[in-house]
């Protein structure tokens, strides 16, 4: 069996890559994919700790996270389609109507 902290370190690296994508990119869909990457890194942490402490609750939580990620992806992509119809771009810096 592989020690738990290897999985935690992999999860931390993936989460940091996702943070980097959200902070440095302007394409809305790429930012969204980076968020999915972070969600998956957290799922990996849940499963690593579930095995470490023999808790089935971690798996149930990952199940719900997947369901909610599906709902989030559907609504978020619909918002981007709507934004594209209005502005002909999905550059998130262009959607600045409510900007201070």
């Amino acid at each position: 069996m592989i020690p738990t902290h290897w999985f935690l370190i992999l999860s931390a690296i993936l989460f940091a890559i996702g943070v980097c994508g959200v902070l440095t990119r302007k394409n809305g869909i790429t930012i969204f994919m980076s968020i999915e990457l972070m969600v998956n890194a957290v799922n990996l942490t849940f499963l690593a700790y579930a095995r470490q402490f023999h808790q089935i609750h971690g798996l149930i939580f990952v199940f719900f996270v997947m369901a909610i990620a599906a709902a989030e992806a559907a609504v978020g992509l619909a918002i981007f389609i709507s934004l594209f119809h209005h502005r002909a771009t999905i550059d998130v810096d262009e959607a600045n109507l409510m900007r201070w």
Partner: protein
Amino acid sequence: MIEYAVFFFFAAVAVIFALMVVLHRNPVVGALALVASFFALAVMYVLLEAPFLAALQVIVYAGAIMVLFLFVIMLLNLQKQSEEPTRPLQQFLGYAGSAAFGIGLVYYLSKYAVMELPAGPFIADARTVGIRLFEAYIFPFEMVSILLLAAIVGALLLSGVRMEERT
């Protein structure tokens, strides 16, 4: 020993394809790289003795959600749009901040989160998860079904079904 080889190979695959998602200019390539990264994560779930969730990862994430992403990217014809780079200051702060965050997290985990392996196997197949899901977690399960229904209606409304055109 073979377990370690599998772990490090697929960890490298996951990290490299995740970097590709963030660094590649073309969102279609990014979406396909994200699919590859999710497959590598499914292998991680198998190594963590959760085959049910590995199957869900492949079917729901790599199958359904990423196909939705690809459809939207191709529907909007995004690969023709050139994405202008962000401001240099934002670029620098983004890379430096996330690198510092990641290095700090890895340092903390490798120093303080090293634990003994649990004794005995952990059985988390579909049967165990299903029994727990439909006994203790039945209420959240039904709530998620309502949430998914609301997401379907919201997505339809947002993505261009115009009510005034219909009537």
